[in-house]
């Protein structure tokens, strides 16, 4: 039934019929959600094979989302670090992060499926804001589930979502962060499948979400590959992105996965590092690496950035980690805070705390990167984080 809708690169191709990338992925949902997942899968395959849908998607990305986003050469920081640093500027997209790519794709798909309502989970609020934005644009109603802790950390984004006409519901269970917001959204979806599309915000969850969300983000890697060639005459030596669920990383990696010379690196928060753990877990509809205790209870992640505060990562990343096509490294909150300030001062670009993880890895690994061309996905801008950082720095 599953036919690859895109000429996907081999290293990051379509999953198998049951939604597995190697041994990771699948569709571990209860019977009530089975039909809904199948409906999304069928609709996605059908839409992506339709040239008109692809054109509509590209049109809305360009005229509304602000694509293509540029790739910026960072002269000052390059000199300081002894390497050639390029930033893929997803921070310049409408709503301030890469999240809008996936959301516009799913919103168009939801419309096509005849849905009148979207629900979403959000961590930092960026995906929630993007979903609320797309819902406003396409005349759909929108409910966003957000951990109560995150609502406090990202007050401004809560207000933004409400301004855009969305309802924001606090997730009060567990750690009251992203993983609990996912649980709440999945629970809500069960009782509302008729008119509601679940607009999942990262490359995670049950099949087809990890595949579909990555596909909608592939434009990041496709554009970046061309832009780096235009700027440098060649490919980067390393492509780096932060990893929460892993959507911005998957979009970037997809552009280079078949270029064997390009190292793919994911930067995870030290308090939420899941890749490469020995035993996968089955949670949130997928089999993937998760932080868990010895009996299999999922642990709570702890990170300075709400958007990366997730104890697992998408199944395709688990596959890339296991097959060693991509490498994943932890960075600490302190290293992130330093990089947040470093990029602001040297380049005049205030990164999202999430994106600052990718910079932090580059700074940390600079010895081994001497003289290399390093492409970093600037997944979002730091406006949402300045207040939080101010509080930390002035404490």
């Amino acid at each position: 039934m599953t036919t690859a809708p895109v000429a996907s690169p081999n290293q990051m191709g379509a999953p198998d019929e049951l939604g597995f990338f190697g041994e990771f992925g699948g569709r571990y949902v209860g019977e009530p959600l089975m039909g809904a997942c199948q409906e999304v899968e069928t609709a996605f395959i059908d839409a992506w094979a339709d040239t008109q849908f692809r054109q509509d998607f590209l049109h809305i990305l360009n005229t509304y989302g602000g694509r293509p986003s540029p790739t910026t050469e960072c002269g000052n920081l390059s000199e300081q670090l002894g390497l050639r640093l390029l930033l893929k500027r997803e921070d310049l997209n409408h709503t301030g992060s890469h999240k809008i790519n996936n959301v516009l794709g799913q919103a168009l798909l939801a419309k096509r499926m005849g849905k009148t309502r979207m629900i979403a989970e959000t961590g930092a609020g960026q995906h929630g804001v993007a979903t609320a934005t797309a819902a406003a644009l396409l005349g759909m109603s929108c409910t966003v589930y957000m951990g109560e802790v995150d609502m406090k950390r990202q007050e401004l984004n809560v207000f933004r979502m409400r301004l855009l006409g969305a309802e924001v519901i606090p997730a009060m269970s567990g750690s009251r962060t992203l993983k609990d917001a996912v649980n709440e959204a999945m629970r809500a979806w069960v009782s509302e499948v008729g008119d509601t599309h679940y607009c999942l915000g990262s490359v995670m969850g049950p099949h087809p979400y990890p595949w579909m969300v990555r596909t909608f983000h592939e434009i990041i890697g496709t554009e970046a590959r061309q832009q780096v060639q235009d700027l440098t005459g060649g490919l980067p030596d390393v492509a780096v992105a932060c990893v929460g669920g892993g959507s911005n990383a998957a979009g970037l990696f997809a552009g280079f996965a078949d270029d064997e010379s390009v190292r793919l690196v994911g930067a995870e928060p030290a308090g939420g590092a899941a890749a490469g753990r020995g035993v996968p877990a089955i949670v949130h509809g997928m089999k993937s690496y998760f932080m868990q205790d010895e009996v299999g209870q999922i642990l709570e992640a702890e990170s300075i950035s709400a958007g990366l505060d997730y104890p697992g990562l998408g199944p395709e990343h688990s596959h890339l980690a296991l097959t060693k096509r991509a490498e994943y490294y932890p960075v600490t909150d302190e290293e992130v805070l330093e990089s947040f300030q470093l990029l602001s001062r040297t380049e005049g670009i205030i990164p999202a705390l999430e994106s600052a993880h990718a910079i932090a890895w580059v700074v940390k690994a600079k010895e081994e990167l001497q003289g290399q061309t390093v492409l970093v996905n600037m997944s979002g801008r730091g406006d949402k984080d300045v207040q939080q950082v101010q509080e930390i720095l002035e404490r």
Partner: protein
Amino acid sequence: MSTATDHPTTAASLQQYLTEKRATGSRLLMPYITAGVCPDWLELVDAVIDAGADALEIGIPFSDPAIDGTTIQEATVVALDAGMTPARALSELQQRQFGVPLIAMTHYNLVYRYGHERFASDLVAAGGLGTILPDLPMEHAHDWRAAADAAGIENVLLAAPVTTDERLAQVVEQTKGFVYVVSTMGTTGARDGVDDAASVLSRRVKAVTDIPAIVGFGISNGETAVTAAKESDGVIVASALMRRILDGATVEEAAALIAEIRQALDAAYPPA
């Protein structure tokens, strides 16, 4: 009422046991208890069996109960905070004899992590005859089923109102023990009324199989139980029972709910 003589581990498979019970004309009553929901949870198990339970679901608490509503979530938090683990639940159960079959209900990750073979054999030792793993759809159940089959554990599959005829045919072919009829499109949780959807689905299931069809999700009292059992072979009572415990009821007070439902069912559908 159960006696040691119908101890199922010697007699029967879960499905055989339930089928024989059904043959008496009475409706099946299957309460659910989260292991560790209260310090004396094993007394609660005994009490609901005395109150007329035909079989019992034992919930093993998982950190991320995505299919559960607020009551079971709350029970889960209480049990986890009290240090309940899969191994502890099974070994505490093993210390007692119950006159009815036990069925473990949990999220698949705990079984996966425990190890399929080891979980199956420890469950058998604890008096378990079946499992309900709602987030393990039949497409992905191959490995667990192999281990369960080898140990004599029956893996129960669920059917929901949205399950298509085509898929329902596969569910009844692959389920063992019984068919778990999900009464409504939602999470677990007691409701005031039982959806019409439950009757429609029960009829659909019974039209294609003779395996017992038991309705769960939303049974809160005698009245909803009688309604849900009209077109089915019985009911599962989970959140309403856990609610009583979470609200501070004693074991006896909580078990009274099961006695009330037993009475209502037997009055409406008298056993021969």
